[in-house]
């Protein structure tokens, strides 16, 4: 098959994939509302960013004078390759309706199509804000030509980064297919690396301020001058342009040569992945077995809700990818991590207790409560037609979340005893934390029932249904402050510093009423939705 033919097919595939994604984004009103909220949330930064870009253009005297231009120009292609690799691992390493596509088009055409669609999606999400910054900067410089030259410079770089990122991503997927144990190791190390990165980011700012280090100086070590000179071609014909260097031309030639080579490598890798049946040497290890049937341990066995909870927990343990969304907790815990280190030894005890209870409330609701209908979607024809009531089903889901959260509510305060809290203070914190676990999980099931997500997404070769990001955000923004307020009141009470003024009493009663009332209403709502659920 000719390249021309494959490119034509590839562009058709790319267009079709992009249109599918676009229709998915705009699929229903609730998703549009979610998108609008996300845009409002992140769009605010444009109000500051665009004037700043304009001001930067006004004051720039040369490309070298633009702050962080050289390290940013070096980091850009690296970031693009990594992004492409990550997206390949996460999403575009495989194509839907694989049998059909592989019989209808050459793998090279499919690779071109998948990469084209991904670039389209990238442009859709980031093109407009990025375009806004570039236009504002170009207007500041007084040369709108930058928009055109910037585009011309970016196209070969984006194409080259995309094909090599894809090739690398497919390479990793092939490796994971061959070495399943490596997949587990990479997942575990990936989680740890992310936790480390988030925690490190909390210290980075403070370190830079205290150590009195020039960031520009440090970053100049990682600068690759030929690449910087190539990116600086963007400013050709503007007042801030420098002389055209030979290095820039070499980089352009290299990028142009490397792109078809990358495409060829990607195609070979993808063909090998898509057309090769993975053969595992030890077939028995691939057929997981369970002895003894469905036998929940005590105390789960006591009630039907408990047995349902055990079923949910068991499935979660055997399919932990369903719990990927819980990693969001890392971003909330990290700031406390620095606090633990920075605070005096007297404060470590309360912080450990607070972190324990905070995790407990988070896990109690977020583990299994934020998408109850989506999690059970394909089983609903079975579940809705059993004799078990909606109340029992929802209680089972509550219990499964609490079973995850409750140990944190116990062991956090317990550990804090070793850091100075009294046993009484720890015990009271545990009791309050346990109550918060219950209210958090009750709130979560109602929230999750109001905005169920049914679409599965393939993540690292595993299809999972995760709760809506909007639901996660609402849950965290409601339960987080609620937990902190409750713990503050508890802390003042157990340390004897609580003064029962009329104002405090009114506010605290309102807090209790709101926490209990909203949670209970949410729980009742979930039951009602479950009872009236219909498959359309």
């Amino acid at each position, binding site marked *: 098959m000719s390249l021309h033919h494959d490119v034509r097919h590839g562009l058709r595939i790319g267009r079709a994939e992009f249109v599918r994604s676009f229709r998915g984004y705009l699929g229903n009103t609730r998703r549009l509302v979610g998108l609008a909220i996300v845009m409002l949330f992140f769009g605010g930064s444009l109000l500051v960013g665009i004037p700043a870009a304009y001001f930067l253009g006004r004051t720039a005297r040369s490309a070298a004078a633009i702050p962080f231009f050289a390290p940013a120009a070096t980091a850009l292609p690296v970031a693009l390759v990594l992004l492409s690799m990550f997206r390949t691992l996460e999403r575009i390493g495989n194509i839907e309706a694989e049998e059909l596509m592989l019989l209808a088009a050459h793998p090279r055409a499919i690779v071109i199509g998948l990469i084209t669609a991904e670039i389209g999606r990238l442009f859709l999400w980031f093109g407009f804000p990025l375009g806004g910054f570039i236009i504002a900067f170009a207007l500041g410089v007084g040369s709108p030509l930058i928009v055109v030259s910037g585009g011309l410079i970016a196209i070969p770089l984006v194409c080259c980064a995309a094909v090599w990122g894809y090739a690398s991503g497919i390479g990793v997927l092939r490796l994971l297919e061959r070495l399943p144990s490596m997949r587990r190791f990479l997942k575990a190390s990936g989680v740890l690396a992310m936790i480390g990165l988030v925690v490190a980011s909390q210290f980075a700012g403070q370190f830079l301020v205290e150590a009195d280090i020039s960031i520009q100086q440090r970053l100049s070590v990682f600068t690759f001058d030929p690449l910087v000179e190539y990116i600086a071609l963007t400013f050709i014909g503007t007042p801030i342009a420098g002389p055209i260097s030979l290095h820039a031309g070499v980089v352009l030639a290299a990028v142009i040569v490397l792109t078809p080579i990358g495409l060829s490598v990607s195609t070979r890798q993808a063909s090998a992945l898509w057309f090769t049946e993975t053969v595992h040497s030890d077939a028995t290890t691939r*057929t997981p*077995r369970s002895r003894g049937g469905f036998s929940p341990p005590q105390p789960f066995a006591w009630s039907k809700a408990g047995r349902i909870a055990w079923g949910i927990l068991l499935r979660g343990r055997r399919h932990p990818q369903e719990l990927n969304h819980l990693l969001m907790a890392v971003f909330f815990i990290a700031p406390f991590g620095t606090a633990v280190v920075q605070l005096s030894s007297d404060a470590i005890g309360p912080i450990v207790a607070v972190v324990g209870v905070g995790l407990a409330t988070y896990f109690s609701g977020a583990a299994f409560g934020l998408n109850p209908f989506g999690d059970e979607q394909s089983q609903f024809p*079975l579940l809705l037609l059993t004799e078990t009531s909606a109340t029992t089903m929802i209680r089972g889901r509550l219990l499964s979340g609490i079973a995850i959260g409750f140990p944190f509510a116990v062991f956090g305060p317990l550990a804090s005893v070793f850091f100075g809290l009294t046993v009484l203070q720890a015990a009271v914190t545990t009791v309050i934390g346990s109550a918060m676990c219950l209210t958090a999980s009750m709130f979560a099931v109602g929230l999750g029932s109001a905005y169920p997500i049914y679409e599965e997404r393939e993540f690292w070769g595993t299809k999972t249904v995760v709760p809506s990001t909007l639901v996660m955000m609402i849950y965290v923004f409601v339960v987080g402050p609620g937990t902190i307020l409750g713990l503050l009141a508890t802390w003042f009470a157990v340390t004897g510093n609580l003064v029962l003024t009329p104002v405090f009493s009114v506010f605290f009663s309102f807090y209790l009423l709101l926490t209990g009332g909203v949670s209970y209403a949410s729980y009742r709502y979930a039951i009602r939705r479950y009872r009236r659920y219909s498959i*359309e």
Partner: protein
Amino acid sequence: MPSTDEVPAIRAADLQKMYDSEVALDGLSLTIPAGTVYGFLGPNGAGKTTTMRLLTGLSHPDSGSIRVCGIDIDDRRALASHIGYLPETPPLYEEFSAREQLEYVADLRDISQDVADERIKEYLDRLNLTSDADKRIEAYSTGMKQKTAFIQCILHDPDVLFLDEPTSGLDPRAARTIRESITNFADTGTTVFLSTHILPVVEAVANEVGVLFNGKLVAEGTPAEVQSRATNEGGSLEDAFLAVTSQHETGVTPRDV
């Protein structure tokens, strides 16, 4: 053969269902006596799955009424013990083994442990799943999943069984096992509402047939009646099905139907 019980197993009157502007069901009425094996036929998109969902209470009609075993379809709690439903996509937890899945379902269905153990063992044996019962369902073939899902929908000994393509994806041996199970259930008085494209299955087990086309019931009767009305003598049910549906597609009034 259909019994003469006064309360029909399924009574649906003038069911209407729209999806946006698309008519899924247009005035469908059914009366199916207890003990009947009702073969529900229709081309793709005719509204068969929609009908199954309405009759099981999993979806609500825009208008019309449904009673199964004399119970209003909105009363899910009362209905649960009377019906079993096998949808086209088996509702199974892939993380469970078949034994765990069935024991879990038995618990949800309030079946006592002794009875559940006995029935699970019997059905696993009958459908040749005993040796694989402790394997996780994710490792099962399509046929094994279908058989597991079939067992879970009959585990509570329902009065009315709704089966959506129960033999699809099964090898001939497994398909025969399911077919024989359907006949056995009918012999014990269970009503079976069987939706399938595999017409020989309907010919083999059904004692009443309904043909749905564009949301309307266009033919109904015993297999022999439907065949004789729609085709020349000696035609198969497949011939009758093709005749009935193409007559309605082309707008020509079907002969005697």
